[in-house]
C-alpha cells in the first residue's frame, strides 16, 4: 500500500514535470516556427495563385461568395431538416 502511495507521488512529480517541460518546449518551438514561417514563407496575397496546390475538383471561379454563403446556409438548413 505504502508502495502505491510513493509510486503515485513519483508519477505525479515526473508526470507534471514532463508535461510542463514538453509544453514549454512546444511554446518555444511554436513561436520559433511562426517566426520562421512569417520570415521565409510569407503568406501569399489572396490571389488565385495562392490556392494552386489546393484540390479544386471542378469549381469554376464564376460563383460569387454571396451565392456560396447562401448555398452553404441552405445546405446546412436542408441537412438539419433532413430525416426527421
Amino acid at each position, binding site marked *: *500500500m*505504502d*508502495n*502505491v*502511495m510513493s*509510486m*503515485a*507521488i513519483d*508519477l*505525479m512529480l*515526473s*508526470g*507534471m514535470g*514532463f*508535461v*510542463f*517541460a*514538453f*509544453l*514549454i*518546449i*512546444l*511554446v518555444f*518551438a*511554436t*513561436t520559433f*516556427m*511562426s517566426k520562421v*514561417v*512569417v520570415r521565409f*514563407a*510569407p*503568406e501569399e496575397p489572396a490571389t488565385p495563385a495562392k*490556392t494552386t*496546390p*489546393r*484540390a479544386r475538383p471542378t469549381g469554376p471561379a464564376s460563383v460569387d461568395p454571396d451565392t456560396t454563403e447562401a448555398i452553404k446556409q441552405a445546405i446546412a438548413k436542408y441537412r438539419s431538416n433532413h430525416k426527421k
Partner: protein
Amino acid sequence: MENFSVLWTGSGLANLSGGQFVMILVGLLLLFLAIRKGFEPLLLIPIGFGGILANIPEAGLALSAAENAIHMAKPEVLAAMGSALEVPYNAAMDITPEVMQSFKEAYKNASVEMVTAANAVAVDNGYSDGMLYSFYSVAIASGVAPLVIFMGVGAMTDFGPLLANPKTLLLGAAAQFGIFATVLGAALLSWTGVMDFTILEAAAIGIIGGADGPTSIYVSSVLAPHLLGAIAVAAYSYMAMVPMIQPPIMNALTSKKERAIKMSQLRAVTRQEKIAFPVVVLLLVVLFLPDAAPLLGMFCFGNLMRECGVVERLSDTTQNALINTVTIFLGLSVGSKLSADKFLDLQTLGILGLGLAAFAAGTVCGVLMAKAMNRFVKEPINPLIGSAGVSAVPMAARVSNKVGLENNPQNFLLMHAMGPNVAGVIGSAVAAGVMIKLLG
C-alpha cells in the same frame, strides 16, 4: 413439450440476475441522459445500448467462445477445456461453484497459447465469440479505434487560436494536474484501506481527468482493461457535466475584476503556420516522448490532412464516415465492459468519485495557472480561460465564454479559450504517454 422447456430455461426471465437487472437499468439511464439531457450522445448511446446487450442473460454477447463454454459448463467440454487451461477436472467430477471459479481464474490468467487452445476447444464444441466480444477485440484490444477517433479529432481541430497565442499551452499543461491528483487520490484510498487500487489502476483512473474520451479509453485498455467500462462512462458523463462542474469553481477562485478582463483580439494565423504546427508537435514527440507516438501521431496526422489543403477528400472521410463508423463500434465495445460482474463493484464507486475530483482539480489548476501567468506577462489573461485547459473540447471553452459573458456582456472569450482547450488535448496525450512509458 421439451422444446418449450428449452426455450423457457434459456430465457432471460428465468436467468436474470440482480446484477444484470441493475446494469440494464444503468444502460437505460445512460440512454435517457444521452437522449433527454444531451449528455455526449454520440458515445453514450452506443455505450448504454452496448451495456444492455452485454447484460442479456445467457446471450453471452460480451464473452469469448471459451468463456461461453465455461459458462454453459457441459462436463465433457469442461474436461477438454481443463486440459487446455491446466485445470484439474474430469467429466465425472461435480461442477461446484469452486470448479467454475477455478476455470474462470485459470482463463483470466492463462498465457496467450493456453487462451488460443481453450478457444479452439470451445469452437470445436460449437461455441463462438459473442458479438460484442468480437467488436471489443477488433476495436479496442487492438488499440485501433481510439487512435482512429483521435485522427478524426485531429482533422476537426483548428489550432489557429493556439498558434495566435502559444503561451496558452501552459494552461493546458496546468490543467493536467487533475490527472495526477486523481492518481494520488486513488493511491490514497488504497493506502487508507478504503479501496484497493494498484498503481496501474490508479493511473488509468487518473486519465479521466484528461477530459478526453479516446485518450481515456486508450490508456485504460493498456493499463487496466477490466476498469475500462467504468472509466469510459465516468469520462464521458463528466465531460457532459462540465457546464455544471466548472462554473462554481471558476467563480470561487476569481474576483469579479479578473473575470471581466478583456483580452485583445487574436492575430491572424497563416496557412503555413497551421500546416507546420502538427509537424512540429510530431517532431517533439519523436525527440522526447516516443510512447505518446500512437496517440499524438494519429492526432497530428489528422490535423495535417485537414490543414495541408491537398487531401480534402481524405480529410472529409476522416471527419465523417470513418470517425462515425468507429464511434459506433467503439461505443458498443465499451458497453461490453459494463457487464454486471465487472461494473457492480466498489471500485466503480471510487472511479466515479475520483473522476469528479479529477475534473475539479484540473479546473482549479487551470484557473490558478492563468492567475499566476498574469504576474509575468504584460498582456493580461482572463483566468476564466484557464478552466478550458482540461480539454472537453469544445464544451469547456464554451463554459469559459458563458461565464465571461455573465461578468462582462461585451467580452467574448470563446476564441481565447479554444487555445488552452486544444492545448489540453495535447497535454493529456503527453501525460498518457508518460504513464504508459513508466507503467505500461
